[in-house]
């Protein structure tokens, strides 16, 4: 199978998502080895995915969880109170909330997140089996399963267990190890 540039552009998304069949993958690989333009398109799109996939790209406002819990508590209270007491208690809760909000922000800041991690998919204690054999590049920060298209620096790959990689500060690739990871 031979593909041209237009076909590569049409399939670049599926290619990066690992959703093209093996024959097409081989054909695209072959094409981009000889086509500088298409290599630029594929590399650039991959880079877009990596940058935007990082949790730092979308930060939840400070205190978001705390304010949400307060609102849920108020709703819960409203459901359980008879209507005559609701208004009075509603005001009381609102007043208490106002007093707590400043301290609350600090509490949320100090307790909800723990140490900062490079991605939402790289929680300490991620679900990657500790004895699983993985690949990590000497210069990289992520570890991968064999064949992952996001492996860079293929000449500097090291093999180790997921537990060893985690100890050395590597974090799991959110694409090839996604099934083991939990959204926070």
């Amino acid at each position, binding site marked *: 199978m031979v593909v041209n540039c237009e076909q590569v*552009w049409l399939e670049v*998304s599926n290619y990066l998502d*690992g959703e093209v069949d093996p024959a097409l993958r081989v054909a695209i690989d072959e094409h981009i080895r000889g086509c500088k333009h298409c290599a630029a398109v594929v590399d650039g799109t991959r880079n877009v995915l990596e*940058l935007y996939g990082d949790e730092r790209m979308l930060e939840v*406002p400070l205190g978001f969880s705390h304010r949400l819990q307060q609102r849920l508590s108020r709703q819960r209270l409203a459901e359980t109170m008879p209507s005559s007491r609701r208004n009075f208690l509603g005001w009381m809760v609102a007043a208490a909330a106002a007093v707590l909000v400043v301290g609350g922000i600090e509490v949320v800041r100090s307790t909800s997140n723990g140490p900062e991690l490079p991605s939402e*998919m790289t929680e300490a204690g991620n679900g990657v089996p500790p004895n699983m054999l993985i690949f990590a590049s000497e210069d990289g920060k992520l570890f991968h399963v064999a064949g992952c298209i996001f492996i860079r620096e293929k000449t500097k790959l090291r093999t180790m267990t997921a537990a060893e990689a985690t100890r050395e500060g590597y974090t799991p690739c959110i694409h090839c190890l996604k099934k083991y990871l*939990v959204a926070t």
Partner: protein
Amino acid sequence: MPGRVISLERPAEQGNEEMLLRRVLAGERDLFYELIRPYERRVYAAAFAILRNEADAEDVAQEAILKAFKHIGQFRAESRFSTWLIQITVNEARMRRRKAHANIMEPIADRQDEEGNYTPRDFADWREIPSETLERKEVRQKLAQALAELGQIYREVFVLRDMQHLSIEETAKALGISTASVKTRLLRARLMLRDLLAPGLGGAWSLSGKLSFEKGTKPW
């Protein structure tokens, strides 16, 4: 080849979610926050993708979660709980946006259609941009600015799929569109972002503190 993964959660997490759901439905409504906690970030992201404003996104995210709390009895187990929650959020955010924009013409970017194939405009060689680059606020701002330039339909799909890592199927359900539309929009969103960012990602960001991505360089 990386495998496609439909579910984000491990079986243990899913079991925990089912147990929490049963208990909430049985009347332990105080557990509701535990149920939505893994998704609160995603709910906010979905609202932000549509509203592009932090305060509105937080407000709509809270409204959506409150709505889910009040109507949890209507949840049907044939869809995933997280998808149901995002669907509510998307509807709330779209409603808010319609109200706010009732008398305003949609920006041209929102009328970008899906017809025809997208042709990349910039073929400059790319360097790898290390993730440390994201430590720089101005880089994050440039990326956010490029995302804001996408049409609404592309931004919604891109944020849910590529930033919040929903599967194609979950993204389609959450937005009420077909999986084929998700794929088409995703391809265009990714290629448009690549073109928008090419001047910066082509090397300037990784070489020095100077950013070369300027408004005049966008390809359309």
